[in-house]
């Protein structure tokens, strides 16, 4: 496909398709009050869908984002787009008999994944249940428990995050394909393609998707500068975000931050396709269940009881 490229005073690269897109919607965009109405805004506006970009185009986007983030947070920020490893399907295990509800995972996740501190948008929510209540009724759960010490007597805890479904309701709902399932099973969001309609949030049975209702704030010195395009790079207001099994770590063979931090070893992680992996051992030897099986979303997030 030969694309006519031409330079213009703003040094934007426009092919005809993008030009047409722009002419149709440029007027609408110019009507919006834009604080940073500079060339990079226009480049971001015309940015193609991530999966339609070729290698070179992706690299251009990554360079632009690295420059933007580095300027904004006054330190060198890298944005990778590491691809899925072949022969890998990530799976997650959580040992309910060990979890003490300390929420260290929540805060490790916030730090690792550059979640907004104000307003707070934690990707992991820990539900607290009283023993003896009818436990399947999530209405009985308390998300905002605040005791002096954990675990509280007569309580048990169930952390919930993105379940990385095999049949995700969210990707089916998204009207723009801004969210999709990667080859290694991780459901991701392109924060530059999401229109913020929040239909995916209505569709998700696990409350795993979160919206940037306001401008996200991260102190410069707390920003994790090692980022992935589909994962922990800083987000924009008005887009949806979610847990990605720490795509920036796990695609390089590391554990997710929540697994690493867990003080009681309740969290397990690994390759479902590898018969010798820890996660396979848990699935084959423990009493395992998944959340809301009746909805047939088929999560790759397995809850189990080790004892």
């Amino acid at each position, binding site marked *: 496909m030969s694309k006519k490229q031409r330079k213009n005073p703003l040094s934007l690269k426009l092919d005809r*398709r993008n030009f*047409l*897109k722009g002419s*149709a*919607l440029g007027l*609408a*965009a110019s009507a*919006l*009050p834009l604080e940073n109405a500079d060339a990079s805004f226009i480049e971001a*506006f015309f940015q193609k*869908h991530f999966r*339609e970009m070729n290698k070179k185009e992706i690299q251009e986007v990554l360079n632009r984002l690295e420059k933007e983030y580095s300027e904004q947070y006054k330190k060198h920020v890298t944005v990778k787009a590491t691809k899925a490893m072949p022969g890998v399907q990530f799976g997650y295990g959580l040992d309910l008999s060990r979890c003490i509800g300390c929420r260290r995972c929540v805060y490790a996740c916030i730090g690792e994944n550059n979640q907004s501190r104000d*307003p707070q*948008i934690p990707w992991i*929510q820990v*539900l607290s249940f009283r023993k003896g209540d009818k436990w*399947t*009724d*999530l*209405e*009985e*759960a308390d*998300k905002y428990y605040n005791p002096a010490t954990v675990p509280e007597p007569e309580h048990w805890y169930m952390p*919930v995050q993105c379940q990385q479904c095999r049949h995700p*309701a969210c990707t*089916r*709902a*998204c*009207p*723009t*394909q*801004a969210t999709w399932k990667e080859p290694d099973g991780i459901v991701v969001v392109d924060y530059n*393609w*999401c*229109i*913020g*309609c*929040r*239909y995916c*949030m*209505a*569709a*998700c*049975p*696990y*409350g795993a998707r*979160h*919206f*940037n*209702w*306001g*401008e996200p704030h991260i102190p410069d010195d707390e920003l994790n500068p090692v980022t992935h395009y589909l994962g922990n790079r800083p987000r*924009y*207001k*008005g*887009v*949806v975000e979610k847990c990605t099994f720490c795509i920036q770590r796990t695609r390089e063979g590391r554990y997710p931050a929540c697994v690493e931090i867990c003080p009681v070893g309740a969290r397990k992680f690994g390759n479902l396709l590898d018969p010798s992996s820890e996660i396979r051992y848990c699935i084959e030897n423990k009493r395992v269940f998944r959340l*809301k099986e009746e*909805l*047939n979303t088929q999560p790759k997030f397995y809850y189990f009881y080790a004892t």
Partner: protein
Amino acid sequence: MIRNFFKAMKQILIGDRNYYLWIAFLSFFVIAGMAAYAEQIHDGLIVTAMRDPVSWGLYISNFTYLVGVAAAAVVLVVPAYIYNFKAIKEITLLGEMLAVTAVILCILFVMVDMGHPERLWHLLPFVGAMNFPSSLLAWDVIVLSGYLFINATIVLYVLYKLSLGKEYNLQFIKPLIILSIPWAVGIHTVTAFLYNGLPSRPFWNASILAPRFLASAFCSGPALMLILFQIIRKVSRIEVKDKAIFKIAELIAYAMCINLFLEIAELFKEFYSGTVDVASIQYLYFGLKGNNGLVPWIWWATILNVIALILFLNPKTRENMLTLNAGCVFIIIGIYIEKGMGLVIPGFVPGTLGEIYNYSPTHIEILITVGIWAFGALLYTLMLKFAIPIYTGQLRFSSTKKTDGEKTSSVDLEPIAE
């Protein structure tokens, strides 16, 4: 041609004092709404009361209601064109213009609900990456824009022909009119499926939802039209026969019967089976753990709907303008609550992880909503101002005759008596 168009456009500037006051009144709210929207664009949707547990609120409620209003135009189209019921045929154009207005308002309500409205093009086929046929929202974009196109084409064609002093060729637009009937059912069905197709929200995931949507739409849309017709015939030369109004009121009565029946069916299923999924409907009708923000609203809506049904079933009260109008107002309010907040919010409460978040719109949300409604009223007024003189024959495009005065209306446009 263009000169003629501008000549006709001038019509919207001519009016008496009341007309200018009305326009100024609406413009005030439109501007207030725009100012509120500017604030929302600047600060983000955090200025609304929506949050992760309740991620849709007043905007999407209004969208859902207005899709019903748009779809209801078909109630007039069916008897008018298919059975050639003349008394209604005369006013079909007004109904179709209302449908056009309602669809435009639907689009505006979706726009103001978006986190990134400037990325709307991502949603379009070919230029963007529309997730068709998987996403019901993509379907909704297609059916709504198609409906807008169909109705706008009919209205423009009829007006164009009439403006030249010719009778329009029914055969020419008949395929479009016939298409518009299933399409109207389609827009409301697709909108119902938008909610219906989410198994994570048991309150919406009931197969009765789409029929309920249609039944309630066929009450609220025509009720709104009845009020508008009476205003229009008062302030313009358009004649709307009482007979037509009573006929429509009768249709409303049937639709309301079905609507209430379906509501009872839903209540029975939920409360009699009493699974954990009863929580949402319990929140709506009786409150959940002391959270009962919606309870008085839904009961008022139900009471208003029942009263309206009684008024419209009885020919005596149906054919009395006072009780008829009261019934219309009751239905408009009743269905607005039922199909709006009463449908959207309980879908989110309790949340998928059991959270109860009490949503109540902020003043910004209310201002933007009022602004959009005022814009709709303004748009409809201006459209009428443009269309009515053409329709009644006061305004004619003609290369030989100057357009002025009632004398030029030589076309056979007199309302046909039954």
